[in-house]
């Protein structure tokens, strides 16, 4: 296994850019449509309410649990297995009334009374509705702040066309990952939000490496169309892109299969994010910059002004 990618010839990535745009465009439209229609399956962190996870000694009988809850005024509870057949997750919408924060304890003692075997409390989470609302606001705000800060940094370090391309690619990644969660109805909780920010971090990492090479090649080869230069840069970085994605995917697979149910959403978002992020740094970031008309002149090192040049001559 000497080399994953043969890099002798320049791969004409940009020739496919129209196709890639249509593909990405369709994915984005589908994602936004799904987000508008299905919305996200917001987790407890955002909606507020109560989650109780209990462990039974044997396989749990979900319909019995539902019946017990219904009979005691907790109708509308979502009861499902969590991770294993013995573990049960019960989710209750925020309840009107004074004792919202005691629902967890009440449900737990109900289940203990109703069951002949021992019921272990694994976790109880209660989130007030107001906390959730604030979190949604904060989460959106964090995402925007991150994008703006990264935009500013890349514009400062590189050039605004590349920065716009990079941030465009990030927005693309975030929207499509959100779309995936919406289409599949996966629960969107705080860890997924964290994963999304990590996707931003990962994708920008990839994009920066590509941008860096684009700038370098523009400076190195005095001839050639912008398209050729970008193709060359993408080809040069290709094997690095693939290897880093591969190692990241390897550890994420370990996390996905071994990390347990609590971390599943996190691993799913990141796994998908790594693929979409790798794709977008090749096709979206650089082709956006190309479309915006990035050229050699924009990326040449600034002329160093001679010291004292623009000073008035001494009288």
């Amino acid at each position: 296994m000497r080399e994953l990618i043969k890099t002798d010839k320049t791969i004409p990535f940009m020739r496919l850019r129209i196709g890639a745009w249509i593909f990405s465009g369709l994915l984005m439209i589908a994602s936004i449509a799904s987000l508008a229609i299905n919305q996200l399956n917001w987790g407890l962190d955002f909606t507020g309410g109560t989650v109780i996870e209990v462990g039974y000694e044997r396989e749990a009988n979900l319909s019995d649990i539902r019946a017990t809850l219904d009979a005691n005024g907790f109708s509308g509870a979502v009861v499902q297995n969590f991770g294993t057949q013995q573990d049960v997750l019960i989710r209750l919408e925020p309840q009107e009334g004074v004792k919202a924060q005691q629902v967890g304890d009440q449900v737990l003692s109900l289940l203990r009374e109703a069951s002949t075997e021992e019921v272990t409390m694994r976790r109880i989470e209660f989130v007030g509705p107001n906390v959730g609302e604030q979190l949604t606001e904060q989460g959106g705000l964090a995402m925007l702040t991150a994008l703006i800060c990264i935009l500013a940094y890349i514009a400062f370090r590189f050039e605004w066309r590349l920065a716009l391309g990079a941030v465009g690619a990030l927005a693309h990644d975030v929207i499509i990952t959100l779309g995936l969660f919406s289409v599949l109805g996966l629960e969107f909780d705080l860890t997924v939000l964290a994963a999304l920010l990590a996707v931003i971090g990962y994708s920008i990492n990839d994009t920066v490496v590509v941008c860096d090479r684009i700038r370098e090649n523009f400076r190195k080869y005095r001839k050639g169309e912008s398209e050729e230069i970008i193709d060359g840069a993408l080809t040069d970085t290709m094997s690095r892109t693939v290897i880093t994605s591969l190692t990241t995917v390897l550890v994420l697979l370990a996390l996905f299969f071994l990390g347990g149910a609590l971390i599943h959403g996190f691993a799913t978002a990141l796994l998908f994010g790594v693929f979409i992020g790798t794709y977008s740094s090749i096709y979206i970031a650089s082709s956006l910059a190309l479309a915006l008309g990035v050229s050699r002149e924009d990326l040449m090192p600034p002329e160093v002004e001679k010291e004292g040049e623009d000073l008035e001559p001494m009288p």
Partner: protein
Amino acid sequence: MLNKFPLWKNLMVIVIVAVAAVYALPNLYGEDFAVQVSATRTTTVDTQVLGRVEDRLQEINIEPKSVVLEDGQLLVRLNSDSEQLRAREALLQELGTDYVVALNLAPATPDWLEALGASPMKLGLDLRGGVHFLMEVDMNEAMRKILGQMRDTVRADLREERIRYTSVERDGNGLQIRLRTADDFQAAMRYLDGAYDGYTLIDDEAAQQLTLRMTEAKLKETQDYAISQNVTILRNRVNELGVAEPLVQRQGADRIVVQLPGVQDTARAKEILGATATLEFRMVDDENSIRDAEMGRVPFGSELYPNRNGGNVLLKEDVILTGDHIVNATSGFDENQRPQVSITLDGAGGDKMSLATRDAIGKPMATLFIEFKATGERNAEGNIIFERKEEVINVATIQARLGSSFRITGLDSVQEAQNLALLLRAGALIAPIQIVEERTVGPSLGQENIDMGMQAIIWGFVLVLAFMVMYYKKFGMVANLALATNLVLIVGVMSMIPGATLTLPGMAGIVLTVGMAVDANVLIFERIREEIKAKRSPQQAIHHGYDSALSTIADANVTTLIAAIILFAIGTGPIKGFAVTLAIGIVTSMFTAIVGTRAVINAIWGGKRIDKLSV
């Protein structure tokens, strides 16, 4: 010479890695089962207590690993969890309620490491089990209370100055003072101007009315005070619960985080934490007719309150004393074997009580019990609406001038006396609080999370190591060495930073760092391969490979760091844990991948004649 590090650079790498390794070491030693004895507010833990504990343990045939008295706390390390439980039972009996006896897990860090200040990483509640509460403080009530005290002060001062006023009442964030005559108005204006810190005086001569408005600075100070007061009181209450290493911390403008590791009985924890009871002592208004008041004609300067035993009581508006002056409260029995609560006041409280009761012997004084219950509804600003439930629990004739210790009698049951004493002792919250978030993790789930997190880290690590060796041969092994060092650095730094906590998402962050940390080495090695392909000599290839990859790596990592910092800023609890490990991982991985691998590669290949590189 090309590719040789100066001695200082090599030394720096060695020293940094060695220091991190030493600080990471305590994490390998695990934890001892322990019982922790700490004092309540009225007692101290000293060598005498130490002696009692040792004797008692000997009696029940338990040989502790060690018994150490430190920072006013006694830590008894034991050999097994069954011994731990037995020891706690015995010590609870021995020491009674004057001391808090809590189960704990104490890090088994050897002495020489502890002497260096090394300690293991703190584990988040999702890993060690326990309860996390987020509480919201009702600021409106805090303001109401503070302005109420201010109102009493202003009234008293005006009386002292012989300035006659029509009324002094609260108005928003200030007090409104109405005067009788123009002379009084002038006198009041002269007197009140600048009399109180943090208040500005606004005068309205036409209406003969003055307003004392709280300044912005004072307002903020007041709110900060209310929060910190509540934090202190919650800490006291948490101590009553007997929890080892609790955390009570302010979060944001009006919230408090309470974390109780190892607590399973959340119902009781909530009952004690959430209870907001306070007492006010007031004189009974026996000059006016209670029947008139009940008909709606409450005389000016008095207020009507329900009596717990039925009927109503007419009380003077002025508060003699509030519950925050209470130093200690214990339940017991009076001469007639009825439950009572004995109260001890602080110095200022004693003075106030003594002054107020000096000329009131033979007059009735009432104890007003105020409780706040959250209604679960919110007002337009999204703040919780609290219902203020006030009732007179006791009316007693003042037999003698009261000082800093006295008793409340006439309570219904022993249980009530005990509860009241507990709440009073733990202090009265200056403003009511409500739990807005609760997360409880059972101990089995915590251990499972640790196991699964470790599995994921180990397997992710092994997979990446295998891949790197296959793909980059010897250079891959150098990168692997860097990766392993990186793990040690992350753990070392996490253990060094006091505020850093390892959570389940934090472990995910470490896994992710392992995957992404090799990126820097991949960038460098790919460059070196390119340079070799461009027919450079091996030494030149290494040199240029590192040089040209450097700025790329820096840019790529700074942008990721931006994302991590933002995550840290908005996240709470576990998410903060993820952000912390991610950020630390980025910084340490840059060090190991750039400086660390270079040191090793220079040492092995640098400055020699070589024809071929194993990359």
